[in-house]
């Protein structure tokens, strides 16, 4: 009964979103009463869809296993929290949530006030038709409302145990919020193009929306990385897996977009490029959905394969790209030939930055699609792994950061004052070189590229430090979000480099009561316990460790979950300021020995901390915008 209501509400909502789109098409968009009608129509469609989703959450919470999807992914033994999160543990439910978020962004945008009624109404229309496209995808190819016939099973098949984790419960929603958030700048850019009035400063209007979506994307990607680190037991934070790469591409494009957005809104150049970027960012988000959903690429964590879904999404993306790029091309003449960009001005540096981002996106796209093309031509399966991405990302990032440190203190529309600014640069270079020699002294030999990375990371941090101190002394304005985000970048480069040269690991075979030594850490295998929990049994091994005079216990586990019979490993991690001690146990061998893996992961916390700094800088930008408005 409730299921039917939820299903009907979703269908009804699709119809009303379609109606909203039609209203935008036929009504006079510049008058306020049609605006009101469009606004109400959208709100109703959204609220109906939201109610449908909430009913679905209720069904999951009350263990309604007559719903096929809930029966396949939930279980009555699950804690309530995971009954809810099981909704987005697989394809249909994730898609449901994805559209909820898509329409939620539109809903909030719909409530905001805007003097340019025409553009606003057009944007709502564009958002509505995109929602309709996804809702049809949901209802036709991935229906979460399907019923198990003829009888409901007694219990559900359970959520995959590796997904029963707080970080993974919030990771997909955050990531989705980021992906679909870029619908606002996309729709607004298209509306701006349709409307043909170049005096409207769309770049200023979409800024806070775009920054917010970027913040969600940044947090979402970091949460995924953090989860993979402690859950998968490999001890890495990034694997260059296709699924990670398709999240990274929109992030890179969005970062480039935010930079060019500030150029376009401050000095009226790069407007065309910024419009194109808004299309690229949203298309890359959709491309990510296509890659993950279609199962076209063999990834460690791809969803179930279904060619029909892939075809639908591919066609959908093709239509969106065709329409938006066609519109873009047909409106190229609406701009007066823009001013030239002055050499060594802030605009010129940001243009360079955009080129670097472009190269990274292009290379990543090649890395993802090349195996497909290669197999088609040579009938040989290949895969592209970390070595390729390292070979591209390291030098490009180094080049980009060189431009970054030169560009600090540059001005809009004016050539940089090389004398004053470069003195600061030389001081930071000297400090960086001193820092690098200290690092070399303590860390030993390292490759040239790592040395340069360390140096660039240090220079960025020192250069911004000098900037802050100097501007405080001279009582000048400090662009705090920019300082925080870029210092975060410097820290990210430093911690990735340090992590890659310092981290080490070793495998032991150990029996209880045996002792091993690794890098001056004493590891004693204390005991093994068997534990019975509500939905799994576990073997818990306890180790007493002694590192640099500190003693503590670590207890990695092996778990067996009842519902699926799946075995998982739980790592045990001792977090210290400079490094993690990371312990996992493998299988039991003959003679009562256990395979034990010890990893020392250096500066890994700083990697996520620097991502947090970037996300925080985004929040600062938004709060600044809001403060200025009120």
């Amino acid at each position, binding site marked *: 009964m409730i299921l039917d209501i939820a299903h009907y509400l979703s269908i009804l909502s699709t119809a009303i979103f379609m109606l909203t789109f039609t209203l935008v098409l036929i009504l006079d968009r510049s008058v306020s009463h049609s605006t009101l009608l469009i606004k109400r129509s959208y709100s109703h469609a959204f609220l109906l869809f939201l109610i449908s989703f909430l009913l679905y959450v209720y069904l999951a919470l009350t263990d309604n296993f007559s719903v096929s999807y809930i029966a396949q992914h939930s279980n009555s033994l699950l804690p309530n929290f995971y009954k809810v999160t099981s909704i987005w543990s697989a394809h249909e439910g994730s898609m449901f949530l994805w559209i909820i978020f898509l329409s939620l962004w539109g809903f909030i945008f719909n409530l905001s006030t805007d003097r340019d009624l025409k553009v606003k109404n057009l944007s709502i229309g564009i958002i509505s038709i995109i929602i309709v496209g996804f809702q049809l995808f949901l209802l036709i190819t991935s229906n979460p409302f399907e019923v198990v016939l003829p009888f409901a099973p007694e219990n559900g098949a359970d959520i995959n145990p590796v997904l029963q984790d707080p970080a993974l419960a919030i990771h997909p929603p955050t990531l989705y919020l980021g992906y679909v958030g870029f619908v606002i700048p996309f729709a607004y850019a298209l509306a701006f193009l349709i409307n043909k009035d170049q005096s409207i400063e769309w770049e200023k209007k979409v800024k806070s929306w775009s920054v917010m979506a970027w913040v969600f994307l940044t947090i979402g990607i970091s949460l995924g990385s953090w989860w993979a680190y402690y859950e998968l037991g490999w001890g890495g934070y990034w694997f260059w897996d296709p699924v990670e790469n398709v999240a990274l591409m929109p992030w890179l494009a969005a970062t480039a977009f935010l930079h060019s957005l500030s150029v376009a809104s401050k000095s009226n150049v790069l407007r065309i490029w910024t419009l194109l970027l808004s299309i690229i960012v949203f298309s890359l988000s959709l491309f990510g959905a296509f890659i993950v959903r279609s199962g076209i690429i063999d990834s*460690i964590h791809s969803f179930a394969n279904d060619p029909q879904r892939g075809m639908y999404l591919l066609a959908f993306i093709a239509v969106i790209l065709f329409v938006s790029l066609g519109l873009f091309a047909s409106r190229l003449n609406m701009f007066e030939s823009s001013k030239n960009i002055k050499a060594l001005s802030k605009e010129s540096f940001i243009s360079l930055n955009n080129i670097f981002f472009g190269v990274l996106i292009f*290379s990543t796209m090649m890395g993802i699609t090349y195996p497909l093309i290669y197999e088609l031509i040579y009938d040989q399966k290949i895969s592209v792994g970390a070595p390729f991405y390292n070979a591209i990302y390291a030098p490009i990032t180094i080049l980009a950061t060189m431009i970054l440190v030169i560009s600090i203190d540059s001005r809009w529309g004016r050539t940089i004052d090389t004398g004053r600014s470069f003195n600061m640069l030389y001081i930071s270079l000297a400090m960086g070189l001193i820092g690098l020699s200290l690092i070399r002294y303590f860390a030993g030999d390292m490759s040239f590229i790592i040395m340069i990375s360390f140096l660039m990371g240090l220079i960025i941090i020192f250069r911004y430090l000098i900037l802050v101190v100097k501007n405080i002394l001279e009582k000048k304005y400090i662009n705090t979000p920019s300082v925080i985000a870029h210092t975060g970048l410097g820290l990210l480069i430093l911690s990735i480099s340090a992590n890659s040269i310092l981290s080490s690991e070793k495998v032991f075979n150990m029996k209880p009561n045996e002792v091993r030594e690794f890098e001056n850490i004493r590891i004693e295998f204390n005991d093994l316990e068997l534990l019975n929990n509500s939905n799994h049994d576990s073997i818990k091994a306890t180790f007493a460790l002694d590192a640099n005079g500190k003693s503590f216990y670590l207890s990695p586990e092996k778990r067996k979950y009842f519902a699926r019979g799946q075995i998982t490993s739980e790592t045990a991690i001792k977090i210290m300021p400079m490094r993690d001690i990371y312990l996992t146990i*493998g299988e039991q061998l003959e003679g009562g020995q256990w395979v034990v893996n010890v990893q020392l992961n250096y500066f890994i916390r700083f990697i996520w901390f620097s991502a947090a700094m970037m996300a925080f800088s985004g929040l600062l930008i938004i709060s600044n915008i809001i403060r200025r408005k009120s």
Partner: protein
Amino acid sequence: MKVHRKKRLINILLLSLLSGSGVLMVLYALNSNLDYFFTPSELITEEISDNRRVKVGGMVLEGSVDRDNTTINFTITDYSETVDVSYTGIVPDLFKEGSGVVVLGYLNEGKLDAEKVLAKHDENYMPPALKEK
């Protein structure tokens, strides 16, 4: 030709030259960092140099798993040919005899020195190359 046209032509030529060489560099980086995916049968017929990283997918042969201190030796099969693998470290939870596995590593006198052993996080997983057969 007018001056500004000439300038524009030079700009366009420069731009295409730059982006063209950029694309070539990316392609070069791709080609020198590929991991080829083989089944055990393909591994035997192809000529593969020892310093080429390969991915081999197949099923773990029943009764082939043998542990020697922290090293684990096992055999991958595609039910027509086999290849021996040796790996040091913790194998994934889903690694067991008779189930699917993908190994990343270097060939050493016909034997595979594994860098990484992957078993898919799905009980029903089969390497795609095997599924087609």
